[in-house]
């Protein structure tokens, strides 16, 4: 993988390290990155995007703890062979937390009763 595959938007309300993790997650889910693919080094990413290397390390660390990436001795980071089983259900739910928070906030702002929203959500999940 090349550092240019990532896009960084410094002005966005989402911190850069989260932007990186989010993109890795999508790239892996979408199949652009397969298991065992090597990731660019922290330095490469930092130099390409002119961002602080510590931000990149933080993103890689977070992705590693989520099980997206695995550290290979002497080679750097690579996409983990199996991502799903290493994560408990609670861990996976935690990933959804920001979206759930946003959803509940919007629902409150629209003054929608909880049961209506839940029913609709349930139907979406079943499909």
């Amino acid at each position, binding site marked *: 993988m090349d550092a240019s595959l990532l896009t*960084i938007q*410094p*002005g*966005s*309300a*989402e*911190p*850069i*390290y*989260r932007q990186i993790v989010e993109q890795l997650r999508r790239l892996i889910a979408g199949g652009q990155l397969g298991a065992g693919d090597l990731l660019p080094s*922290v*330095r490469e990413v*930092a*130099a390409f*995007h*002119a*961002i*602080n*290397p*510590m*931000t990149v390390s*933080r993103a890689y660390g977070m992705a590693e703890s989520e099980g997206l990436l695995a550290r290979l001795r002497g080679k750097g980071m690579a996409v983990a062979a199996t991502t799903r089983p290493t994560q408990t259900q609670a861990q996976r739910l935690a990933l959804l937390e920001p979206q759930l928070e946003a959803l509940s*906030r919007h629902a*409150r*702002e629209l*003054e929608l009763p909880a049961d209506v929203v839940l029913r609709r959500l349930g139907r979406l999940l079943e499909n």
Partner: protein
Amino acid sequence: MNALLQDAHERFDPPLAARGLGHGYEGATVLRCINLDVAPGSVLGLIGRNGAGKSTLLRALLGLLEPTTGEARVFGTPALAMDDTVRQRIAYVPQQPEALAWLTVEQMFDYLSRFYPSWNHAFASDTLARWQLPENKLLGKLSPGERQRVELVRALSSEPDLLVLDEPAAALDPVARRELLREIALRAGEAGITVLFSTHIVSDLERVASEIAFLHEGRLLLHCPVDDTKERYARLWLPARLASSTPTSTLSRRSHADGSVSVVVERDAHGRWPEAHAQPGVRLDVLGLEDLFVEIAE
């Protein structure tokens, strides 16, 4: 043993520290009781409106002016009484530098390199060539952008442990700015140097800064890791009927014409937003750095 002690001493002394730093000119106060510690290896972006006192703070931190109150320390020694071993470790580029206008670029580098034991000649000549800076032109005849680039190359060539830049990007074009940010970011990440720079271009800061400090009317309003600004602070908008239930501890407060109020709030120790955000009709917006800056500085 002594060397060990000194080593330990140096490791724990922050590159820059201010205690109760205050300054004023002719009755006008520019800095009010600034307390600041810049951790080794961090890239601290100092942000504030024009006239907020950013340049004065940088100069006070480096002992370039005599503060009216308080003290600044550089690597543990008082800024006004630094010795040469500390000076070797610092590089500073003022806003719109104009020093040594009567020398050519080459002469200036020749002159300064004599004083810095760790001067990187190869880096200097490479970067001057890469940034298309004419070596045999008089400094006084360079354009402001060229002049600033020369000073930045000068500062980086002395291989400093602490780099202080006052509005480094103001006179640079986008490409040169990106190059500078890259250099700062990599040096901080790899050589572990500490960088303090002031700016009002927020996107630069978001790229390379690890920490951010807001200076407003001579006061330090906020000093935290740059990611925290996006995760810990948000804008809370309350309609007119709820204006009275505004949280008490807010960073800024603005009343709008229709009676509604918007405030900048912070998560508490458990990561929760203030109570008010759960009420119907209240809106909570996560802010980018620029919006946060505008909210606080207005």
